[in-house]
């Protein structure tokens, strides 16, 4: 796959450290519209930390973020949302005591002309989007703590998809899912890709990476090992990068 032109997102030379440990060390990654870039690496390689700098959960110590070629400041999750960056966290980041609609619209509630939260409208919208993503979903009026892992996941996904994201960050979206739900997420990723979204996908399952991603960026110990076009390498090549931390000779 060839990507020409300005990338949708470019994270340039990003570093962040916690208590002297460099969690992310001068990493540069980019993402084009209509592309899925996998972020791979062992636990603790710095993938989630890197992505949290883009979603506004962390502030990078150094480095820049460019969106459509323009430098942007992302200091908090609101800034990220304002740039149409949506994130599905590994922990899902749901308020367990609230129902699906409240979680979906958390921080972006629909209000009526008097400034009051329009609960009925939010629920109706939630029903619509959930019907599209997960037609079996019925539990609209119970706290999300009462939902199964897959149902919770679909609430988190709905939250990211509903607000017309241009850039989607998915941190292990299928980790808690069964085979059928995993397939559903895969189809969703394909569909969103067709719509022109750029997706960063953190994923451990190498088969999913080979199937879903266009490119893969591999990290180890906070450093970027390399970025490869997925259809030019084998899964062994990628596993080698993850385990040994050595880039493959792409020219070969």
């Amino acid at each position, binding site marked *: 796959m060839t990507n020409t032109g300005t990338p949708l997102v470019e994270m340039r030379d990003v570093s962040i450290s916690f208590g002297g440990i460099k969690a992310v060390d001068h990493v540069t990654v980019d993402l084009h519209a209509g592309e899925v870039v996998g972020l791979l690496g062992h636990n603790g390689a710095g993938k989630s930390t890197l992505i949290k700098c883009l979603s506004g959960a962390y502030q990078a110590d150094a480095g820049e973020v460019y969106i459509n070629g323009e430098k942007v400041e992302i200091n908090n999750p609101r800034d990220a949302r304002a740039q149409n960056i949506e994130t599905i966290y590994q922990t899902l980041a*749901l*308020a367990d005591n609230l129902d699906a609609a409240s979680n979906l619209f958390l921080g972006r509630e629909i209000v009526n002309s008097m400034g*009051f939260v329009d609960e009925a*409208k939010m629920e109706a919208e939630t029903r619509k989007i959930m019907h599209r993503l997960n037609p079996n979903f*019925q539990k*609209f*009026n119970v706290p999300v703590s009462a939902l199964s892992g897959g149902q919770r996941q679909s609430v988190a996904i709905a939250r990211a998809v509903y607000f017309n994201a241009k850039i989607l960050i998915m941190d292990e979206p299928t980790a808690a899912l069964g085979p059928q739900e995993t397939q559903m997420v895969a189809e969703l990723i394909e569909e969103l890709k067709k719509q022109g979204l750029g997706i960063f996908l953190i994923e451990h399952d190498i088969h999913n990476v080979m199937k879903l991603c266009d490119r893969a960026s591999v990290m180890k110990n906070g450093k970027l090992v390399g970025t490869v076009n997925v259809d030019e390498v084998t899964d062994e090549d990628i596993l080698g990068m993850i385990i040994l931390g050595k880039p493959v000779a792409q020219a070969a």
Partner: protein
Amino acid sequence: MADTPPTTTDIPSNDTDLSPVGRFLRATEIDTRLLGMIGALMLIWFGFHFYGVIVNGQGFFLTPRNLWNLSVQTSSIGIMATGMVLVIITRNIDLSVGALVGVTAMVMGILQVEILPQYLGLGHGSIWIVTVIVGMTLGATIGAFHGWLIAYRGIPAFIVTLGGLLIWRGCAFLAAGGKTISPVDETFALLGGGPYGAIGSTGSWIVGLLACAGVLWMLYSGRQNRRRHDFRLRPMWAETFLGALGCGVILGSVLLVNAYPWPKGIIRQWAARNDIEVPAEGLFISHGFAIPVLILIVVGILMTILMTRTRFGRYVFAIGGNPEAAALAGINTRWMVLKIFALMGMLAGLAGVVASARLNSATNALGLLDELYVIAAAVIGGTSLAGGVGTIYGAILGALVMQSLQSGMVLIGFDTAIQQIVVGMVLVFAVYLDNLYRSKSK
């Protein structure tokens, strides 16, 4: 489900496998927890009354006079309990509210007794307004300062407000050198209740009818809203039942407060002042709703709207449910905590108004131990100390339960030591019951 009022219930209609009681509860969507609390309240009320009947030959609890007094006594704790709900939902605690009542009441006392009359003249009509504004602003400022220390300086709420408890109680003492400031401005004193500080028979009927209209309007607009979005409707009989119940409770309380007449002495004083001849058989002038009770009701309504209909309320619940998720959703959680403590402080200032007006003086001990009653009221009312769950009406009912226990024990002649023991045990037991309830409803 105690956190946000459900707009719909979309559990499939498998009503048939429920008992009649279950079907009734589902159709009316009455919270079982609310029923439990009302049951406990009734138990306390009838218990004290019949204890009086059996032991003293006469029950004093279920009389218009006692219930009217009970409503006034509940006001200041109830006002603060509505704020404590927010504090506890967000997994914090405020131990300083009693001291805040003390310090705001003392500052207000000095202001209206020693300072303002110099500039405005004694008994000037705006004294009470300035005083109330200053008192509530002072409370809000102190609360905001606590909130800032907690949210932006990372000191645990327990410590900040424990320090505040000592500091502000000390400030209240220093402000007047330990003196009692009395009497307060005449108009100000009306905010504390008493025969003059109540709205009388006609006023109570007007309030009652307006409240009934409000209940019916809420049921109607709720139904319209559900229809518009194709959500499940309550059966018509359930709507009718709820309407009748709501109006019945409201009109019943109007009848109750109107059944409590002014004492003879007050009538004589009032008649003399207005040049009215008191007939030989006496005059029957009803108290009607006391002003502090109306303040509590208005605060309760406003706080309920705040918690269930605004973004602010949403964020309070979200922070309580999962602070990290709330922050990731773009909610400025620190700023929220600061605002919540400021609101708590403002309500403590308002409670200071009610408490000092009722006493017609500002004393150094005003609000002593109130923090414990307020926290107990919120917790008995179903606010979970683990965070994320709580209701305003629950806290007000909780305050009523606490106050009923307290004044019931006074009526039957328990001494202070036993009162404390009972209140302490009830608090612990209530939290235990709450745990049981939650683990069952899961």
